């Protein structure tokens, strides 16, 4: 065995390099685009150049005449395929019929209109340019507030008010809170549209075996099983004849927690041509047709006492939905509302969400999915209140945190926070930056005319989705553990890792439970023909829910192993541990391999025991988990240009027990990068006609290695009581904590100029304009 990790060493809690890495860094991983099949065709999609237009006609003859073109399909051909599914349900939700190819109208730039199937991808692309579509451009609207204005162009002509839903949530007595208020602060806060930007875009290979009437779809997804159920429904293929494979998936950030038109479209093409077909999304397509994230305009009012006690919060949340509902589009802002109270004790909230159609690509889950927006707004409001009351922002937070003796804590939005010590990470972060000294430095800097800022965020998030009654598709997760006859172990998990490292962390869990080496465990996932039904990887749920399912499957298997051990040792008094079974009387041992061999050879069997060693567990979580933490950013603003320098970044996170600190650090670093990207540079810009101006990486600015500050990480550990592993989830924490910490810091830097709030991204020009106004006033 190649591993350097010796047997019996406890692996959980250790920084182990990922088992996934060798194949990723040597270029031997298999992504969708690496899949080759005999006779495979290639597809390319004609997309709308207009945000809104009627289609008067499509002439595909010239494309069909191009040698190498096999077929061209339009919306007329595919109109019987079921609609792209929306899994979210809200009272009164308007759901436009989302055909996989446009029929007589397009609703956003990038809307698929026709597909060319050809013998190679170059011919397919050339043929797209030969299709003539007679578009009749219509007025479009790309901004959610403009879409709500009277007389705005109707995205869907049947709903002239562009309103997909309104949703109200009340908790406590908001009127009393504002009646008792001594201070009320108000602000309009925008969480701009963002482009998720995974390294690998989407891609699909579909393979139809007509003899078996069986369809296999390889797709870059986070949810292979849910995709199977939904795509089978769209195509009318019985689910047991449908197989989905998520091969290596190069990141998703929520954008692949979805079912897309192209996945069903490729299935349709394969079934109609009888040949396998591949479609690989270009980056331009990824930017214009894969879901975007965020897209909030929030109007907030916070009521408080003069001593800083927060009494209540009102929010009107305008959510830019885009032109359609993708899988969870309308549900995302409801998550924001759930987390509006943040880590604070106040019990009175009033929330109104208005979901607005625009002629843009749909929004949906993007790293944090609703919770970064919630945290950003509450943490901004707390700072605004602190400024109003001339209180230190840390002191104000300490005053309002839910206390350690209040858990489980019932929130105003109906949640039950599982466990917490909310003051601990903030206290630790303040110690790390030497807060009092830093404030002294700031005083000095201000005297020198420098704009130095100190900003903090104390975030809470809702993770481990989730109890099934609270989720659209079931919130449980599954695991199967197979001890093979030779004693090595295969784990089949229902989650679908695409960068999170569960092939390593789950192997750590299994190795510890069974007393084996890391390399004795292989974790498989992503293939519905191999793995039992599962839900998938999103919402920081994989370890807290999927890892727990694994834990319980391992317990079942250990009980069975013990019976075989007892049989082999001829004793009722045995103990299982460290990869062996020991007779407590004689001290004799049998190895796991010997027990496995006996179970499969089955010369004799323990009483009431079947041969073989395999256990499957479906685990339903009793509650969500609620990780938390505190981030502090120290910034300095260049007075002459508005440029922001992040001089120091401290992240103290509490994600419960930690299985692999190296992977947790990686999640925090990547998460902070994306939060910092939102705070400083990222924005999907549509012009008034619905053209995406930030349509390539040449214009959409994500943080780069050279622009990232050093990130200092630390942890406090408050185990979750929700699962036996005590884990909470960490996939989105960094993103959630980062944007308010950075914005609060820059607002603090500019506060001597009278600045109270800044919207994101805080580009140098925006800051420079603010400074100009401040200097003049």
């Amino acid at each position, binding site marked *: 065995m190649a591993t350097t990790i010796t047997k019996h060493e406890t692996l959980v809690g250790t920084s182990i390099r990922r088992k996934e890495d060798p194949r990723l860094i040597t270029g031997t991983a298999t992504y969708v685009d690496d899949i080759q099949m005999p006779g495979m065709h290639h597809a390319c999609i004609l997309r709308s150049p207009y945000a809104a237009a009627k289609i008067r006609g499509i002439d595909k003859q010239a494309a069909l005449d191009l040698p190498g073109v096999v077929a061209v399909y339009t919306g007329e051909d595919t109109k019987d395929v079921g609609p792209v599914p929306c899994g979210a349900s809200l009272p009164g939700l308007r759901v436009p019929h989302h055909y996989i190819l446009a029929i007589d109208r397009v609703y956003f730039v990038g809307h698929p209109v026709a597909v060319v199937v050809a013998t190679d991808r170059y011919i397919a692309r050339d043929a797209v340019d030969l299709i003539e579509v007679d578009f009749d451009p219509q007025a479009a609207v790309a901004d959610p507030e403009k879409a709500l204005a009277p007389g705005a162009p109707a995205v869907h002509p049947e709903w002239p008010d562009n309103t997909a839903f309104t949703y109200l949530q009340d908790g406590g007595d908001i009127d009393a809170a504002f009646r008792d208020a001594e201070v009320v602060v108000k602000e309009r806060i925008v969480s701009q549209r963002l482009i998720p930007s995974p390294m690998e875009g989407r891609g699909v290979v579909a393979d139809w075996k007509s003899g078996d009437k069986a369809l296999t779809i390889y797709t870059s997804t986070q949810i292979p099983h849910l995709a199977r159920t939904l795509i089978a429904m769209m195509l009318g293929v019985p689910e047991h004849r449908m197989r989905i494979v998520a091969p290596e998936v190069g990141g998703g950030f929520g954008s692949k927690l979805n079912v897309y038109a192209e996945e069903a479209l490729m299935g349709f093409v394969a079934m109609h041509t009888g040949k396998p077909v591949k479609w690989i999304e*270009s980056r331009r397509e990824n930017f214009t047709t894969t879901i975007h994230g965020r897209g909030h305009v929030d109007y907030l009012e916070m009521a408080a006492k003069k001593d800083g006690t927060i009494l209540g919060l009102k929010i009107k949340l305008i959510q830019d939905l885009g032109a359609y509902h993708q899988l969870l589009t309308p549900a995302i802002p409801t998550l924001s509302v759930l987390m509006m109270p943040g880590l604070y004790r106040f019990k009175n909230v009033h929330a109104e969400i208005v979901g607005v159609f625009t002629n843009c690509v749909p929004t949906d889950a993007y790293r944090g999915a609703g919770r970064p927006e919630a945290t950003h707004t509450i943490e901004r409001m707390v700072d605004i209140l602190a400024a109003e009351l001339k209180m230190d922002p840390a002191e104000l937070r300490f005053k309002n945190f839910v206390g350690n003796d209040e858990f489980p804590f019932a929130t105003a939005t109906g949640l039950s926070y599982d466990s917490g010590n909310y003051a601990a990470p903030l206290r630790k972060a303040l110690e790390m930056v030497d807060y009092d000294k830093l404030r002294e430095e700031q005083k000095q800097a201000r005297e020198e005319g420098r704009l130095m800022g100190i900003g903090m965020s104390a975030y809470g998030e809702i993770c481990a989705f989730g109890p099934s009654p609270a989720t659209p598709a079931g919130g449980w997760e599954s695991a199967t553990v197979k001890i093979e006859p030779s004693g090595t172990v295969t784990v089949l998990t229902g989650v679908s890792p695409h960068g999170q490292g569960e092939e390593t962390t789950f192997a750590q869990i299994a190795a510890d439970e069974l007393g084996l080496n890391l390399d004795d465990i292989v974790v498989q996932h992503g293939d519905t023909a191999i793995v039992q039904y599962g839900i998938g990887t999103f919402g920081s749920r994989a370890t807290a829910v999927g890892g727990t399912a694994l834990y319980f499957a391992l317990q079942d298997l250990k009980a069975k192993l013990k019976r075989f051990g007892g049989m082999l040792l001829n004793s009722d008094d045995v103990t299982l541990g460290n990869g062996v079974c020991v007779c407590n009387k004689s001290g004799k041992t049998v190895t796991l391999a010997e027990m496995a061999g006996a179970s499969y050879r089955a010369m004799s069997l323990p009483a009431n025991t079947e041969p073989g060693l395999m256990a499957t567990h479906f685990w339903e979580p009793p509650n969500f988990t609620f990780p938390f933490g505190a981030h502090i950013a120290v910034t300095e603003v260049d007075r002459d240009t508005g440029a922001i320098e992040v001089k120091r970044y401290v992240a103290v996170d509490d994600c419960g027990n930690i299985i692999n600190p190296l992977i947790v650090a990686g999640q925090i670093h990547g998460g902070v990068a994306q939060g910092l990207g939102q705070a400083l540079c990222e924005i999907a810009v549509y012009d008034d006609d619905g053209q995406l101006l930030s349509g390539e990486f040449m214009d959409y600015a994500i943080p780069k290695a050279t622009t990232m500050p050093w990130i200092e990480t630390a942890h406090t550990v408050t185990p979750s009581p929700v699962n036996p592993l005590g884990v909470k989830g960490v996939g989105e924490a960094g993103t959630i904590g980062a944007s308010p910490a950075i914005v609060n810091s820059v607002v603090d830097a500019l506060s001597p100029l009278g600045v109270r709030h800044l919207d994101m991204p805080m580009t140098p020009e925006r800051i*420079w304009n603010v400074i100009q106004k401040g200097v003049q006033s």
Partner: protein
Amino acid sequence: MIAQNFEYTRPKNLEEALSLLADGNAKVLAGGMSLVPLMKLRLASPESLVDIARLPELNYIREEGGALHLGAAVTHYQLESSAVVRSKCPLLAECARQIGDPQVRNRGTLGGSVAHADPSSDYPAVLLALEARVLMISAAGGDRTIGYEDFLVDTFTTALEPGEVVREIAVPVEDNRTGYSYQKVLQPASGFAIVGIAVRLRNDGGRIADARVAVTGLGGKPYRARNVENALNGLAGGAAELQHAVATIAEGIDANTDIHASAEYRKHLARVYAIRAVAVALSRAQ
């Protein structure tokens, strides 16, 4: 992101390259850092490419007759790392270092960038400040050399005639008393210059002399700011006088506006970065 069908030729020598390019139908590929993305977006669809990036005849850095002669196929990385360039024309090395990322600098070439004439690229400011000269050749013969300022005609437009290729850029060797600086505001996504200012000057007994100031990124065409140069000469470099001297740097320029920076902000940045570049250059001038 798939280009239209095209022919690709990698000639063995310069002569063959020139004959392939003689009819003016083929496009020169000299690193491809700008052309290939344009082709993938189908904003450019040349039928034929002639790849000159690896021609040894075009890859040289020579000091001769008081000038550095730089072959068109010299990469940004070569300029950034060359000991000769760093000591004899450090402004050029400082500029090359700020282009794109390591991958781009390893593939992109000086000649390719100069011939492409992107108004937000970095070289124009520096080549204007250095009073560089461009040597062009063609199969028909008649090699000619013109000043870079004349070579640069307009946005993405140069003095190159069909069939003509940039063979060499020549920059004067600077004595080590010359002060220089290239200061750039990066477009946050692409890394191109929102504004880039090149300054090259001498220190004449504590006073600025022979100042040259050039601007890229601001408008459709990079330019020498001669009014600023004149205003700078003779100054001691105090903050107030520098501010006054650069005040007109963007005067009369139709500045770009895009999602990254408005015209007004770009003009402001030109002034701020000009002051910074002059201050750095002056500190380096002996």
